[in-house]
């Protein structure tokens, strides 16, 4: 666009209005995301009520150690993201780039651990479908649990991957010096997105990993 030298896009009156619009837009988008994940959380709730024993048993087959490490990694990434937003607001370019890079690295570690877990599930024949390895009276409902496990963590991982793409774009822009004390809205709204994806995991972790832990 030819208006890159202006402080705000042509349809807005001033930078404050643009900031308010972007901010509101991201919050509304996160509202739609809550509804999107909400469909799966609803299904999970229904079936956990129907098949509590199967869900507890299946839950114990997840790797609690890797899940806990991943939770810590993700919370740490939210911290570095918050530092990135603060650096952007202060106009500190090098700390901004460093924090964004650190957030990306932590996100990548999370995904690496997640895919290690997926690989284990393949090896243990816990993937729904024809090759599902469990048998017995609970097997059907356990397959449903693992359907939810893969659907929910898969959707979450997809959101993480999109987040990594957005962070990459932010780093490119930050290196070009596009952010300043006066203009750092993209860092703020993508920060919101990153925190949201984190919060989804904060719900997924207990619902998937900790359901039946006390029965062990």
């Amino acid at each position, binding site marked *: 666009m030819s208006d890159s030298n202006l402080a705000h896009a042509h349809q807005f009156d001033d930078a404050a209005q643009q900031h308010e619009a972007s901010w509101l837009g991201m919050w*509304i988008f996160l509202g*739609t995301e809550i509804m999107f994940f909400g*469909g799966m959380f609803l299904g999970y709730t229904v079936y956990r009520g129907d098949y509590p024993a199967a869900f507890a048993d299946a839950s114990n087959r997840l790797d609690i150690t890797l899940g806990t490490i991943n939770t810590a990694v993700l919370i740490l990434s939210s911290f570095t993201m918050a530092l990135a937003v603060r650096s952007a607001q202060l106009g500190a370019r090098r700390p901004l780039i460093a924090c964004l890079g650190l957030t990306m690295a932590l996100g990548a570690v999370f995904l690496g651990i997640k895919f290690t877990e997926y690989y284990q599930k393949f090896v243990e024949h816990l993937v729904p479908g024809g090759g599902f390895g469990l048998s017995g009276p609970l097997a059907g409902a356990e397959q449903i649990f693992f*359907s939810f496990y893969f659907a929910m963590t898969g959707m979450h991982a997809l959101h993480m991957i999109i987040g990594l793409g957005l962070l990459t774009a932010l780093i490119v822009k930050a290196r070009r010096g596009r952010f300043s004390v006066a203009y750092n809205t993209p860092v703020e709204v993508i920060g919101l997105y990153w925190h949201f994806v984190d919060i989804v995991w904060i719900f997924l972790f207990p619902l998937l990993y900790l359901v039946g832990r006390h029965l062990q």
Partner: protein
Amino acid sequence: MNAVIAAPRRHYLNVNYGLKSWLLTTDHKRIAWLYLIGVTFFFFIGGFFATLIRLELLTPQGDLVQAETYNKLFTMHGVTMIFFFLIPSIPAVLGNFLIPIMIGARDLAFPRLNLASWYIYMLGGLFTLAAAAAGGVDTGWTFYTPYSSIYSNTHVALTVVGIFVTGFSSILTGLNFIVTVHTMRAPGMTWFRLPLFVWAHYATSIIFILGTPVIAITLTLVALERLFHLGIFNPELGGDPLLFQHLFWFYSHPAVYIMILPGMGVISELIACFSRKRVFGYSFVAFSSLGIAVLSFLVWGHHMFVSGQSVYASMIFSLLSMLVAIPSAIKVFNWTATLYKGSISFDAPMLYSLGFIGLFTIGGLTGVFLASLGVDVHVHDTYFVIAHFHYIMVGSAVMAYLGGIHFWWPKMTGRKYPEPLARLAAIIIFLGFNLTFFPQFVLGYLGMPRRYHVYPPEFQVLNVMSSAGASILAVGYLLPLIYLIWSLRYGAVAGMNPWKAKGLEWEIPSPPPTDNFETTPLVTQEAYAYGVADAQAVYPSGEPANV
């Protein structure tokens, strides 16, 4: 500046030319045209499937198509018309064009996102067309599990991916509208000076952003069941197919209001203009839009009265469904009160509006029949239901869409359409519509089930009436396609305000300049200040209006 006065006025249509200037535009007015072309294309695709359905139903036997093909025809008709025509029609065409102008803004808050919405919409449409070309899908537009997830051998996954993709177009459009209305109103444009068209789209956008993600994840789960054998709705594993119906209707019932609310907004504008009166009970009409949006999320269970859901749930859903009649009736009564003692003229948009009020009343009241548990058990899955929702979706939503297109056509193009032909088309559509769908109420009451290509011979007379009506309706729909295109070149020049209507869109040139307003307007009046203008016309010397 004086040097350019002789040159033709610059507006959004002639500011630049060429395919690229359209396909890469971020101007909300040009994107509205892109959508107009898209939805018109899908309307006629959906109409093609409907034509084949009505041809097959001319005779009791299956002579034109057999059961498998018929299943695909009504599925593709429903999918195309609902997801690719009705849902985007008024919001994405008229809403896109008008909302920024009506609130005094230069564009929507996120113009590039707006263009992206159109591309997403077309991409989703192409997926679904590809599914149709590859052999179609036969589950019905409702995709009920486990048939859709396990047993159907047709292109379910491709179709639901198309709908999923298009859903994002709805979400982004709704998001854009809400942010725009919240942050970009001109000085003096308070919430209660907003045209009711904007209120209606605000309510619609709420449904877009809260409902659409739910259908997105639901259809994703169906696609994952087909592609990766997840078992969430699979009864063999202990899964619950009814859960799918709950999730599906949690979106798809509000989706009915996505289709009708923008139409109600259009009708409020039209009734006020052609009665020369302010809308009676403005705030009631405005809040009834929000009321409909909220209640729409609480009534989905009325689609499942015979599915085996708890009778107590059914009773609650029955009550809540009847509650939706209240805000809907508020609108109808207020429009009627607006007409009362108005100075009414019968131009084509007004004919569509009056048709809307009558047909919506029939469609709405039969909806109350269907919300009653006992009656619904009798007519469930019969042509009574088909007639009911076509009165809402075609009789009301399409009438409002056409009325709006005619009303704002001079603003969009700078040209008038041929009025006598347009009135004729409106009357043909009204007559053809009623002949098509009224017999279906009777058919359904007599017990003809939906979704069958054969029927007992005693139903033939009513079915022939319906098919004959459909052919008249087709003529009525083709007429505007022809004369509106004709008017682009040969129509009379419209001028700024051919209807002498109120609203910011009528205070700027037709067609509007790219930035809509030369300077940000200052709004000092409520919407629909028709009485005020008339008083000023009576006292042109500037005497006070309230003598």
